[in-house]
């Protein structure tokens, strides 16, 4: 347990030792604000809620989260520091979890820094704050799922750019797996398979949460996605760490 915390703390410090943290947070805040006001029509809707804010989170994460996750393992492999980390008395699972938690905590910080918009909507009207809290939770869970996918892809690649692009593509497919773009591909398959794939869509699960509906199935879904991809990360590392 303490190894996980130590690794997470080191990793988190590394974000802030480089411009990564600053650039990510500034761009995330700027884009999320811009999307909310211009594309989401925050004022024009005349409703006191954060629906236009959360709607665009999945698309923001699609490009910003892989930028965080791409370095998780690819950088360690490229610089050789993975040899140091893997020969210290820590299990692979501790290292995978520690690094993931650092990245997740970092996106949580970025997400928390959007608090002014919450204050704004409370100042302008009388929103249902329960819905907003649930939506924040859903957003964080979705970011975690993106990060877990990115962690696995980063472990499989030495090159960060390749890791970034593959992660974006896989996240995109997960995001849209409930839509014709993906489902048409399985048109000939039995209905069960089509339904299963449709059920994997991040967007469907996130939309329910962002409307304030806490369905345990949505929460469990995201947690399972995270655990599955982190487990895959540890297997990939076990196989490829020394390549």
């Amino acid at each position, binding site marked *: 347990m303490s190894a996980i915390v130590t690794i997470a703390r080191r990793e988190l410090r*590394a974000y802030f030792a480089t411009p990564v943290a600053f650039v990510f947070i500034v761009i995330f805040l700027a884009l999320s604000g811009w999307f909310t006001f211009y594309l989401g029509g925050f004022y024009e809707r005349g409703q006191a809620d954060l629906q236009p804010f959360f709607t665009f989170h999945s698309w923001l994460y699609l490009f910003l989260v892989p930028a965080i996750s791409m370095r998780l393992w690819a950088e360690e492999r490229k*610089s*050789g520091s993975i*040899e140091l980390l*893997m*020969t*210290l008395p820590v299990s692979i699972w501790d290292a995978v979890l520690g690094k993931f938690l650092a990245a997740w905590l970092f996106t949580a910080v970025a997400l928390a820094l959007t608090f002014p918009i919450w204050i704004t909507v409370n100042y302008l009207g009388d929103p249902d704050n329960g819905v907003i809290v649930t939506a924040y939770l859903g957003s964080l869970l979705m970011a975690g799922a993106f990060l877990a996918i990115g962690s696995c892809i980063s472990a499989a690649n030495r090159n960060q750019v390749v890791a970034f692009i593959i992660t974006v593509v896989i996240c995109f497919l997960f995001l849209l797996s409930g839509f014709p773009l993906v489902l048409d591909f399985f048109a000939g398959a039995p209905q069960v398979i089509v339904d299963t794939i449709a059920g994997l869509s991040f967007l469907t699960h996130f939309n329910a949460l962002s409307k304030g509906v806490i369905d345990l199935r949505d929460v469990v879904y995201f947690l399972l996605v995270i655990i599955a991809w982190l487990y895959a990360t540890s297997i990939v590392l076990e196989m490829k760490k020394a390549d």
Partner: protein
Amino acid sequence: MIKAEGLTKHYGPLTAVDQISFKVEPGEVLGFLGPNGAGKTTTMRMFAGFVPPTAGSAEICGHSIISDALAAKAKLGYLPEGAPSYGEMRPREFLDFVAAIRGYHGDELRTRVGEAVERLNLGTVLNQPIETLSKGFKRRVGLAQAILHDPPVLILDEPTDGLDPNQKHEVRQLIADMSANKIIVISTHILEEVDAVCNRAIIIAHGRILADETPENLIHRSRYHNAVTLRLSRDGDLDAVAADIRAVAGVDHVETRSDARSLTAFPDGDAMILPSIGDLAGEKSWPLEQLQLESGRLDEVFRTITAPDSAAEAA
């Protein structure tokens, strides 16, 4: 004690390490010698738990590197090849991190890190990012990381690579200071280093152990062991001198050098030919500039063992 039994690693069709077995006891400083690609680094990585062996087993202080890896790693201090670390960290943060992973905290962590910093003279660079440090300091940060938990076993992959002569001397001194009750394994291309710090040398090539002896015994294998080399001044007649030496009892053969001023006389077996040649030189008043007894040449032994064909060509 560390032990390897039939340790083997295949990379696809390539056999990097081929059934290596050896044991090292406390107090031994083992030098791993071999050409590039011989399997030194792979063997060390298997001990460190970074590369899983294809076959065979290895133990560190009784802990299997496969079934009891965490306990084995806890007993080991390991310097990976090239001393990788986290470039954006400062040495103090980095060493604190490694110490925390190794389970130290509070005062004990500070003491451990402080001792390692002092041993490797890192005091002046503690707060500079590691990526801005010179090669020598980076290597020393890597060494500090390896020794800070005072491990019974140290495995150092090319600890002096890229260091200047003064730094090499310091690192060798450090190894010598720590060697009394530890097991230390170092790999190196530098043959003088084996002579300077190791009391045992293993030569490997193509993944196999070709020699496992003390450095002195290895040197004794050299055909130069107890040979005599002399050099004449410009007006000396090398051919005449060579002919005289060939007649000395115990001399097997004489090789003259292309500069036409020096030659080496090789003894027959263990014969000591220096006194006779010295006497003869006085008797005949050879215009000598230099007369020396060769102790043996480790690089020649190394070449004979690891690449017998090319060594024969060169000779």
